[in-house]
């Protein structure tokens, strides 16, 4: 017996505080949804915001703003992957499989979106129709995957955010170009930033 070297906790209260301290430590093995919502919220706010700000009278954004938006998306994808890999290093099992499949679902969603947009363009859709479809389908893919993530991880904030992004993105198509970009920036990016703050506060308040 090694119980001499491993004494019992002094009291029940101390034992419970050891448990809650370790539960907090174990959070290091799970990607922070607060951080990822803030990163993506910032990317949408600035990326779509730039597209809206730089748009000419026909609704076409400048090349610079488009490059910035793509660069922000790439940076956000890289941050998501690096953060998730670092957090889940050394953990195997169902949750690792679930996380990998969930990550691939985003890839599938945006690949499918790329095909839809190319096909619309090839079929002769106008610049505005293509732009509006790209904006609302991008929001639909993100929204549905946040809904799925909310179900998967029983994350209410994520589920609500998914519903919000899907509906706001779809409705933004009625606004036309370039106003649709502004909707995605403020309502879409803003919604993600709000969800990130809610998650951060909730986590801090958790026992």
């Amino acid at each position: 017996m090694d119980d001499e070297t491993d004494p019992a906790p002094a009291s029940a209260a101390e034992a419970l505080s050891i448990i809650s301290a370790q539960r907090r430590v174990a959070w290091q093995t799970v990607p922070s949804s607060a951080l990822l919502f803030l990163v993506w919220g910032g990317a949408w706010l600035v990326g779509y915001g730039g597209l809206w700000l730089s748009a000419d009278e026909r609704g076409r954004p400048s090349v610079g703003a488009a490059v910035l938006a793509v660069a922000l998306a790439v940076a956000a994808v890289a941050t998501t992957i690096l953060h998730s890999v670092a957090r889940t290093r050394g953990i195997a099992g169902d949750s690792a499989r679930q996380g990998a499949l969930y990550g691939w679902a985003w890839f599938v969603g945006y690949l499918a979106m790329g095909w839809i947009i190319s096909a619309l363009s090839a079929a002769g859709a106008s610049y505005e129709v293509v732009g509006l479809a790209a904006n609302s389908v991008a929001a639909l893919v993100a929204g549905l995957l946040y809904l799925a993530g909310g179900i998967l991880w029983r994350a209410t904030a994520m589920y609500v955010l998914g519903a919000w992004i899907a509906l706001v993105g779809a409705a933004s198509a009625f606004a036309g170009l370039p106003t649709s970009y502004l909707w995605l920036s403020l309502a879409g990016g803003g919604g993600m930033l709000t969800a990130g703050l809610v998650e951060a506060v909730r986590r801090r308040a958790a026992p």
Partner: protein
Amino acid sequence: MTELDPVIHAQARLRVVATLASLAPDDRITFPRLQKLLDMTAGNLSTHLRRLEEAGYVTITKTHEGRTPATYVQLTGTGRVAFDRYTTTLRAVLGGAS
């Protein structure tokens, strides 16, 4: 406090079990990652894990990832039930005391 499971009711082992119980039920963790989370020496952690394994609370699997050997630790169903019972008892003790 006599009803508390003596295998879990020890400071270091409680930390080990609480950490493993915080993972999803079917997840396992590599020995080095667990060691890092607990900030224990390898020898110390091995000793505690052996005791927990003897009690049937954890399983230790040695495997290979490519050419490097990897040791995975997982809380068993029995271990999870024992930990749940332990925390329930703690709360009852606290509730009764106040």
